[in-house]
């Protein structure tokens, strides 16, 4: 984790791969990209010459004791359970599902689980197509769920098979993207907030207003993502991150116009801009901090006290799934408290599973940026899939800001 290496050349390659994938970087994606560094090094022999590619051990090692998922087998199985098919095909991120959780499912239901992997969401959605392709289970981002339901990609869940659904926390009972969890079950969630280098920012900011502080002029960055930027600004103004009111949007735009002269860059490459020293404080996806801490160990991240934006992945099965019963049983398996905890201990994201808390690694539970206090959680707002006309209102203001 702390291998010595020439930071700049590693940065270059990391940044390249990051750009090519061109999606938000999460810890799980980072792991894949580190693997790809070897390939890109071939393109840059000169740079590669001064690089020890061995120094690329990625995100914090998950030394956390993974809650023994084998105990999950002890959970009572309902009597009137239909027998599942012999196979289950999962389309997933790499390192996004604990091995023990898969093994215990295979043992319990006598199902052979096959996992395939994708490296970005575009690839996932392409593989799923209009009915899930050959896959039974995948993990769509919540914001894309309404569209996939309407297009008839995601299949409705059979609640009679989801005996563990009561384990979900209260705030996940009726999510905006899928009221009543009729089609999907939340899997993991994360936040967008503010990250800063304590060597430059000597105080400990708690508000997103720190991103408007003229003292850091030309060293502030915002994400190049209209929904995230408006979300943060609207929440700071006490408004909804998903507002459909154009007057609210005008207010947010006015505030963003004030901020623009202070901004160094609107970029999703926060790992690059932060580690290069150009940006001291920025609007970042929470999961990116692990990668930044590779270069700046003291790098700090917080969820603004006004509240923040949260995102989540769901788990879903599809209208064309070849093994629908096994799929439903697997979703129920993921809702088991032990299994949910095992996954959190691997991924370092909190799950929506209230019953899982007691089995989660204390180091994760005590990290307020991963597991914030309920008071903060209540102020988090999930970005929703907006109607086209509303989307246009956001985008035209965003383009006005960027012009």
């Amino acid at each position: 984790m702390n291998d010595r290496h020439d930071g700049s050349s590693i940065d270059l390659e990391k940044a390249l791969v990051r750009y090519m994938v061109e999606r938000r970087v999460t810890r799980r994606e980072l792991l894949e990209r580190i693997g790809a560094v070897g390939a890109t090094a071939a393109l840059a022999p000169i740079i590669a010459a001064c690089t020890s590619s061995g120094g690329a051990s990625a995100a914090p090692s998950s030394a956390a004791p993974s809650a023994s998922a084998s105990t999950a087998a002890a959970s009572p199985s309902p009597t009137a359970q239909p027998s599942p098919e012999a196979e289950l095909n999962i389309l997933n991120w790499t390192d996004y599902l604990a091995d023990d959780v898969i093994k215990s499912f295979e043992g319990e239901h006598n199902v052979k689980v096959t996992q395939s992997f994708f490296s970005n969401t575009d690839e996932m959605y392409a593989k799923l197509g209009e009915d899930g392709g050959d896959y039974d289970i995948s993990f769509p981002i919540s914001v894309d769920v309404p569209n996939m339901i309407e297009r008839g990609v995601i299949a409705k869940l059979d609640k009679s098979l989801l005996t563990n659904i009561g384990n979900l926390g209260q705030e996940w009972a009726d999510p905006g993207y899928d009221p009543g969890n009729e089609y999907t079950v939340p899997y993991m969630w994360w936040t967008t907030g503010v990250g800063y280098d304590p060597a430059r920012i000597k105080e400990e900011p708690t508000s997103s207003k720190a991103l408007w502080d003229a003292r850091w002029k030309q060293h502030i960055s915002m994400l190049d993502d209209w929904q995230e930027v408006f979300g943060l600004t609207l929440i700071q103004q006490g408004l909804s991150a998903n507002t459909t009111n154009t007057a609210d949007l005008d207010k947010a735009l006015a505030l963003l116009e004030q901020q623009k002269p202070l901004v160094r860059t609107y970029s999703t490459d926060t790992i690059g801009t932060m580690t290069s020293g150009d940006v001291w404080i920025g609007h970042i996806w929470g999961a990116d901090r692990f990668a930044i801490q590779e270069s700046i160990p003291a790098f700090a991240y917080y969820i603004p006290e006004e509240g923040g934006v949260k995102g989540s992945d769901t788990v879903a099965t599809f209208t064309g799934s070849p093994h629908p019963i096994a799929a439903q049983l697997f979703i129920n398996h993921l809702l088991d408290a032990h299994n949910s905890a095992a996954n959190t201990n691997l991924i370092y994201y909190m799950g929506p599973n209230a019953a899982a808390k007691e089995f989660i690694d204390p180091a994760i539970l005590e990290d307020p940026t991963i597991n914030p206090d309920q008071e903060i959680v209540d102020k988090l707002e999930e970005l929703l899939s907006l109607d086209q006309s509303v989307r246009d209102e956001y985008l035209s203001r965003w383009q006005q800001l960027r012009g």
Partner: protein
Amino acid sequence: MGAAVQPADAPAAPASITAPGRLARLRAATLVLPGVAWLLLFFVLPLALIFVVSLGSRDSLGRISLDVLSLDNYARAFDPVFLPTFLNSLKYAGVTTVLSLAIGYPIAYWISRYGGRHKVLLIILVMLPFWTSYLIRTYSWIILLRDNGVVNSVLQAVGLTSEPIILMNTDISVILGMTYGFLPFAILPLFVSIDRLDPDLISAGRDLYASGRGAFLHITLPLTMPGIVAAALLTFIPALGDFVTPDLLGGPQTTTIAKNIQELFLAGRDWPYGAALGFVLMIVTLSGTLVALRTLRREVIGGD
């Protein structure tokens, strides 16, 4: 009868000559078939698709609908919100072109006149950067230009500045990156036209008492004008549509029209609108190019 036969035979003779001529032309035409097929498949067809999409609309799920075709998207494409970014694109493309010519011409001239037996090697050196991915080369500029990058470290080490000068995410970084990227496209056509210029013409000019400067202005420059025009077009057109360089090296003030188009496609999920804006940009580029070519041909190259 005999007289009647004669005229009938007469045209037969030329026909027997044209028949193989036609065949030869047909055979020659097969030579251009691959090129024509390529252009049809990968230029005309996509262009037609973009045009059709630009007339359509999108449904509530962001899918393209071609049920009703209209020019509405073109009316929207002239939204004043795109004016600043379009002017930005013109500015970067223009400055990049001028810089590429100003830097490229002396290099091409030097290689052609003084390269001697190393000419080929020197031209390979000009093309050498293409052996590395454009993205890697652009990222290298970040390492040079960032606050604690190479340039700022040197400036501070020699005591020219005490604080880092902000170079990244500015006009400077965008123009440097673009000029660097497009310079080889200027040098190659310039080299070809300078190399083809008969040096005896310059000697003749000097014999007729032209000064070195006069010979250059009245002989070399006009005769290499086709190369200059080609170089200008080869840098200006791709620079106008460049998306990657301003996006990677630029900052809040450097948004280009290409970025707007990309956002309409991806963030806006409005392919018809993005297609219309893209089409307008292409028409503007194309007509600008044609006007420039015609003017230059008439005024400088003279005739053909």
